């Protein structure tokens, strides 16, 4: 099976969907002639022309609104944010129009749109560009929120998101674009709302998404040296959330650590922890642990930047707390 990068997987997904459905088009800053700020749309302008690969001005509120309108009249826009930090400029369009029009029109208008782009802290880009905003969007009924951790998931989930008749917020891992995975050629669809057990284990369940799945896998490998058998479950989409798979795992292991790269207060991990304690009360041997970034704007200094974010050592410590080993 071909091994491709996360970036290539996203590119394949969009290329295949645009070839399949002439209503699909891409709009965003630098998506065409520059081939995308992160080169995700590489080669698409040559393949599909300026009619379907639309370079937009630096005006997120404007082109997001155009996207929502295009979706209302039957097209299937993919709106790229250079990073999701810039989606804050357009958040009114996303929350007040995209998420609500289906309901407010009494079902007359679907809004089949994908908002995609990188999210989460990268490396030394300052606090305004180093944030995980998925908890903001996951808060909103009417939006789906998808966050793939591997190239395989990226392709399968993006293709499904493009075909979805409702707005999907598709947040890519800014530091995951170069990661590779085995991805089959051709039509690959992964349903939204299906968590994926990335590693099976018996002693404790680590729940994560996007980049934190990798951190959890590293922690699991390290803990395995101490005889601790971690199960790592990748939720893949925050909305819809596959609570059944999560609860099944937690009931099996009796312990749970939720790991997210966002801030602690009202972070999406808190929702997962709530669901798990409600569904798995009688199976829990320890309080559910959370690992998050520290409750501060991201520092610029490299050492502090690392310190603020969840690292393997933090996950290991949380696992050991939940197992009463320290």
């Amino acid at each position, binding site marked *: 099976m071909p091994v491709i990068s996360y970036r290539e997987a996203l590119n394949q997904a969009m290329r295949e969907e645009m070839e399949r459905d002439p209503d699909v088009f891409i709009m965003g800053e630098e998506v065409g002639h520059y081939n995308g700020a992160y080169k995700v749309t590489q080669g698409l302008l040559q393949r599909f022309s300026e009619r379907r690969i639309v370079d937009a001005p630096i005006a997120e509120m404007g082109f997001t609104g155009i996207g929502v309108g295009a979706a209302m009249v039957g097209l299937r826009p993919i709106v790229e944010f250079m990073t999701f930090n810039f989606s804050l400029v357009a958040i009114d369009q996303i929350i007040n129009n995209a998420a609500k029009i289906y309901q407010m029109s009494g079902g007359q208008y679907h809004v089949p749109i994908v908002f995609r782009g990188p999210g989460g802290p990268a490396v030394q880009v300052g606090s305004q560009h180093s944030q995980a905003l998925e908890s903001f969007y996951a808060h909103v009924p009417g939006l789906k929120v998808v966050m793939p951790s591997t190239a395989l998931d990226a392709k399968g989930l993006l293709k499904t998101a493009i075909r979805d008749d409702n707005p999907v917020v598709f947040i890519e891992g800014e530091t995951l674009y170069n*990661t590779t*995975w085995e991805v089959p050629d051709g039509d690959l669809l992964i349903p939204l709302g299906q968590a994926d057990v990335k590693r099976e284990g018996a002693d404790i369940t680590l729940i994560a998404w996007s980049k934190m799945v990798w951190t959890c896998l590293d922690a*699991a490998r390290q803990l395995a040296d*101490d005889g601790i058998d971690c199960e790592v479950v990748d939720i893949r989409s925050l909305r819809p959330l596959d609570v059944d798979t999560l609860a099944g795992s937690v009931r099996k292991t*009796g312990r749970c650590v939720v790991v997210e790269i966002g801030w602690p207060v009202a972070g999406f991990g808190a929702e997962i922890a709530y669901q798990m304690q409600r569904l798995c009360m*009688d199976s829990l*041997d320890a309080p559910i642990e959370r690992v998050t970034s520290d409750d501060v704007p991201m520092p610029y200094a490299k050492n502090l930047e690392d310190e603020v974010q969840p690292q393997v*050592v933090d996950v290991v*410590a949380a696992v050991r707390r939940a197992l009463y080993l320290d």
Partner: protein
Amino acid sequence: MAQIIGLPKLSPTMEEGVLVRWTKKEGDKVSPGDLVAEVETDKANMDFNIEDEGVLLKFLVKEGETVKLGAPVAIIGKAGEDVAALVEQAKAGGSGGAAAPAPAKPADGKPAKGAEDSASAPAARREPREATRPEQDQTGKAAVKPAAKSAAAAARPAPAKPTAGAKAAPAAPAAATASAAAPGRLLASPLAKTLAIELGIDLRQVTGTGPGGRIVERDVRAAAENAGKSNGHGSDDDRAEAAAHDGGAGDGDAGEGDAGDGDSAEPAEDDRAGEARAAAPPRAAATSQALTVRARPVAQDADSDGDWTDAPASSMRKRIASRMTEAKRDVPHIYLMRELDAAPLLAYRQRLNDLLGDKPGGLKISVNDLVIKATALALRRMPECNASWQGDAIRQFHRVHIGVAVAIPEGLVTPVVRDADAKGIGSIAAEIKDLADRARKRALKVHEINGSTFSVSNLGMFGIERFTAIINPPEAGILAVGAVRDLPVVAAGSVVAGKRMTVTMSCDHRVIDGATGARWLTVLAELIEKPESLAL
């Protein structure tokens, strides 16, 4: 030093027992293996053999009382020792007096380590980072790790203290924190509580190794393992711990009672809850309230108006209730009925009994004895019916052990005739008579009621023509035998008087299909209708 003896686990499923009879007196000297009491469990009356040496200083339980597994029943020690303190402790435990202090452990001279443990815990959060490791693929798929940050993410903490087998040998740090826990609360994780019920562990006897003495999964598993090893008697340390816990067992125990089967023998719960509230710190009080169960008066409910009374269900009754419900719910039964010509069997029986003579107290062969022999032989000939559903396999038994349902005043037991296919009719008859007699006296041993591979139930003596029986899992079948009746039958073209008997085979359809069962009944019919073949 004198110590409290708890009620040991005398059958794999017992959660409580009735102390039927003390066979020793207070003041008697005992050595390991001595029979001290008979205890009625959910299965049978069991011998309670002591494992310690000493003098039985004090009985804490009267004959006829119901006792929870592990609860104090007696105090053993040296002659003349003062047991007042232990009696108090046992009482406090028994009534769950939450306000009682829990001083046992420090008295042993062991320091309470809880405080220093918790003080050092937070320090573990950020450990210094070491050099990075080379990147590896952890999934077997060709993957590279996230490019940025991978170095930092892969950084390892300083080598942790050796933790190999931390899960495997969980009991090691036991006793560290329990005695330092706040008095008045029994702390246990939900999983520990669930597990304790499943494994029949009394949480009051378990030492918690979690924060603040919280009982966690590993503690319950360790306790279950110990119970398995020592048949319910803990080590001296365990007992001392147990005593310490007994002082503070109030609401936790109440929670157990709620989830368990509701025990009538415990004192009023209301007092206990009151004490717990009084003694516990404010936050704990709320929880203790939530965990408090209502007292469950039995047989004197104020609502009854005299129109009804509730008799407490015996442990046997509860056992029958749960086993039968489970079997009827989980086993897909099919029923195959067949009417047999019983005349040859009756004649054969008559000949056998004539041979046995009419000695007083002598052996008599019953129809049931012959049916059991026939059933066993039929199973030998068609072993696919001597089987059991195992979830992902069908287990075929190589030996034929027939469970024989025996009604006794308290309910029903099924003693087992082992290798019934290989035994003579006379020895089967003698064995069943002995088993049935002792079943009525509740004197069967566990091995005499376990391990049957197929069962026979006979209600013919009550004039029941035919009935359907519930399978006794893990067996795959049971034969229900009706009465022999005088019926007109057609023989050689004319109606004549005949003897008929209807048998009903209940089959677990997962193991035995209708056609298979029908073929088995044909084999059985041949054996019963040509009873001489039973001797072959």
